[in-house]
């Protein structure tokens, strides 16, 4: 992480960094498709990459029917994401493998904190009127403060989509800046809801403004939009992130969310991180995957790697 203690301090709104940028969708799609076709990881390398993917997962439940019991079950899966005998066979039984974090709604934070006590696994909370973000700003900021007080050390905020859609960049910057202040020491992930932004150019610009406003991570989606994380959208956000790093020296993290369901997806995204940014962005400090069903597929692939036989989900603990 950068010399600022792992945080992105942000900058004032710098329109010159993004207003001239145009993203060509066809070219981005071509690059994304080509990348997925040109990178593959086999055998023990594949197992290592899948284990790394688990370490980057923000294991998530964001449903209206979440309960303390449901959250506890999720947390226990986060502590033991893969059956121990599989980990032993892979030679990593002693490394204390966990997911990157557990991600819940604000009122579920205390239950998650309790379930994860002593594990070192951070609790992340969505906030700010997730997923639409259209409650009054004061309430949204209050929600952040509540989640932090309850023990969340990472906050996934949603932005007001109106601002990027109408080009109201100063308003977007001000809003995210205020949220960042409300987060205090908690790391802030800014959800851009890219599926609702219309163009990749807007995705790039919103990414840049979020980073200028001090986001520690930029995140694609709430998981509730009709289009969630895609490789082309992620590619564009990573390019914004790279440009921001080149201009400021600050390293900002990236979190694709919603849409990563298979082990193959996880590998594609890790390869994207490696190609566009390199090593540090393949670690949980700068890379998270927001997912709920992904882990189950990875666990099955790992068992297949160990046994050479295809696995059944019934043999793996539910999250």
């Amino acid at each position, binding site marked *: 992480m950068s010399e600022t203690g792992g945080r992105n301090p942000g900058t004032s709104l710098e329109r010159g960094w993004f207003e*001239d*940028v*145009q*993203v*060509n*969708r*066809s*070219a*981005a*799609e*071509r*690059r994304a498709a*080509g990348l997925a*076709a*040109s*990178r*593959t*990881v*086999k*055998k*023990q*390398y594949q*197992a*290592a*990459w899948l*284990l*790394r993917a688990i370490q980057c997962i923000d294991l998530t439940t964001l449903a209206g029917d979440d309960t303390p019991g449901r959250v506890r079950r999720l947390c226990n899966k986060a502590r033991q994401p893969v059956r121990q005998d599989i980990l032993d066979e*892979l*030679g*990593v039984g002693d*490394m204390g493998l966990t997911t990157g974090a557990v991600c819940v709604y604000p009122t579920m934070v205390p239950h998650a904190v309790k379930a994860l006590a002593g594990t070192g696994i951070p609790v992340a909370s969505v906030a700010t009127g997730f997923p639409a973000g259209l409650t009054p700003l004061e309430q949204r900021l209050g929600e952040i403060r509540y989640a932090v007080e309850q023990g969340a050390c990472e906050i996934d905020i949603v932005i007001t989509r109106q601002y990027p859609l109408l080009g109201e960049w100063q308003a977007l910057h001000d809003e995210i800046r205020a949220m960042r202040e409300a987060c205090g020491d908690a790391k802030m992930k800014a959800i851009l809801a890219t599926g609702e932004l*219309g*163009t990749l150019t807007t995705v790039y610009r919103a990414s840049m403004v979020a980073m200028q406003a001090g986001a520690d991570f930029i995140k694609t989606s709430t998981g509730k939009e009709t289009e969630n994380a895609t490789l082309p959208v992620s590619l564009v956000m990573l*390019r914004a992130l790279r440009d921001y790093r*080149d201009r400021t020296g600050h390293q900002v993290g990236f979190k694709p969310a919603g849409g990563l369901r298979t082990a193959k997806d996880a590998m594609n995204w*890790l*390869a994207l991180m*490696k*190609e566009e940014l390199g*090593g540090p962005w*393949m670690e949980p400090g700068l890379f998270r995957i927001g997912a709920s069903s992904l882990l189950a597929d990875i666990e099955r692939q790992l068992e297949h790697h160990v046994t050479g036989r295809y696995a059944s989900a019934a043999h793996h603990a539910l999250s």
Partner: protein
Amino acid sequence: MNIKDIMATMDYGPAPEDAGPVAAWLEARGRAFGHFIDGSFRNVEVADSIVENPANGKVLARIAIAGEAEVNAAVAAAAKAFPAWAALSGFERSRYLYAIARQLQKRERFFAVLESLDNGKPIRESRTADIPLAVRHFYHHAGWAAAAETELAEQQPLGVCGQIIPWNFPLLMLAWKIAPALAAGNTVVLKPAELTPLTACAFAELLAEVGLPKGVVNILHGGAETGSLIVRHPDIAKIAFTGSTAVGREIRRATAGSGKRLTLELGGKSPFIVCADADLDAAVEGVVEGVWFNQGEVCCAGSRLLVQEGVAPRFLEKLRARMNRLRIGDPLDKTTDVGAIVSAGQKKRIESLLEGAMAEGYDLEQTACRLPDKGHYIAPGLFAEADPAATVSQVEIFGPIAVVTTFRTIDEAVALANNTAYGLSASIWSENISAATELAARIKAGVVWLNTTNLFDANAPFGGMKESGYGREGAREGIAAYLKPKRGEVTKPYEAPAVDFSPAPTPDGSADVLVDRTLKNYIGGKQVRPDGGGSYAVRDREGQVLGLAPLSNRKDVRNAVEAALKQKGWAGNAHNRSQVLYFIAENIATREAELATLVQSMTGVGRRAAEREVRQTIERCFYYAGCADKHDGAIHATKARHLTLSLKEPLGVVGVLASDEAPLLGLMSMILPLISTGNCVVAVPSGAHALVAHPLLQVFDTSDLPGGVVNLVTGERDVLAKTLAEHAAVDGLWYCGTGEGAAHVEALSASNLKQVWTNGGQAFDWSDDVVARGRDWLDRATQVKTIWLPYGA
């Protein structure tokens, strides 16, 4: 490496493709291959030319080399098979092409591995580009065969086609050649490159598998000598060649006067233009696909980067970072981006160009990656400040090296882009649709990619302008190159009337006129005396002097070409061109009687015939005036969300050596299609009947024809033809004359590969509307520019 160690580095690790089935196939054939002639494999026992794996230098197989006996046998087999193959219904031919496509698709992996072993290209590219594109080509042409009865009506095949292909995309180039030839009903003798013959050997087995009739496709192996035997074989009707410009020139010379049709897809030094308003990251990926794809061994590689000066530092910074992430190594590893150069010889050629550039003072930056110890590898690289004066900015490197220079304005980008002998492709990067389309319009190249590069489809015409060759592959244009109109052929030799071009006075007298008339050359819209200051007597059939015509020399031709080159704007507006052509008709009509008298007195034909010639000339003006805005391009159905356009652009400056047969109608029948489509013309009227120029230049002068569009220079045909044929700034040449003269201009045209049409030394009936006008004249006057525009907001 254990898993924990890997988690510390997060490397990709090896991901080798299994070459086992291909190795077993090679072993089963004793690693020796012969020719495929008349449906059987021959000369395996003398297979002794080595085919190596460029990735490690090991011998993959041995191959036979075809000499005269094998070439004769293959051509004879193809000629024997031709009548039956051509007589098959479209559906029957389609069935075979469909089967080939299907079988190839079912063996995709096998062919991909074999191609990568033989050529050194990354398996990812052979799997995602070479083989699928080859399959697509056969499907597309199965479609042409199926639809031939309506879509290619009144067309017939040419006969035996000799096809010579390069080593950079062996199976794909085979598909590009064989598929249209077969769909159109021709039979084939194909020679793969000596360095990469193996997928063609496997393809021959596939042909046997689908039961293609014997002799329809014959595959001969060998190098330049075998190629030369094919090119010179008298029973071959057409040569299709893809390869270097140098060999293309040799083939043009070798086929001159033979009557063989010729299409050439040659080299390039294609511009890759990055405007300040481009998506720079996208453009960086474009360079990866444009320059480093297939180790840069791509004729249409966008290897000449022109970057707008203001963004050049940022663009280069991004490009360098990207270049350093390229993975170079084992072609059979699925994560390899850049494989091996095809041979030690090619590697040496590239290296000597790089050394030359460094000696000229240009800095080469290459990736720091470690190259494999064995095999022919060159690290991808770039010359960041290689201006046009650098040799590497002018010659085709055919390796993974880009050259970069900067531009300031769109005008300058156009000037730099066109500052090359080649004209194969261009890649343009700008998010400003107005700027991008202006660049696309003004760059002389056969294929233009907007915000993308190296896109191909069987339904998009591909081929070059200028010294990148002529003819198109793919789409209707591609199959048209394997067809000719269904009609009888004239076999009456052209008779050139004797003309005395002496500048000396003619004491036997001249025509009795009130005031002496002076015919001058018509250059740049002005009447100009000939440079040599001489004239010769034009006589009637009885030898009576009718008047004097300028006796022009090479300098007059030079001046006329200059005037034509200076002409701007004629190509711009089809409606205006048609208005001028109608006006020419109008002005000829007002002189109808005078022109008829002139034709009558010069040629000695009867009054009726002379009047008919004038009347037909007027009709032809109307015809081409009408066609001016109707010889349209097309929109091609290619990939999803891609607008693929083809435009029919004029050749540029075209020389015309007119027929003596019908002095007015013949001359105008050649000039009109050219100017109707936007060309500028330097025309030499019949030497025997040069006085026709006199009324014509007055017609042109009074018809709003802009100066320089038509230039008339009189004199001795074959003297002036030589200067025009050799002129490097003349883009096309249409010649009527003797067989010897036609052969001569064809051979001379090789110097800049201008597009030549001749009468083949045969008599021509200019009054026959079927042969003397029509769409094929317009096609001949134009060349296709294909523009690819992917879209998506």
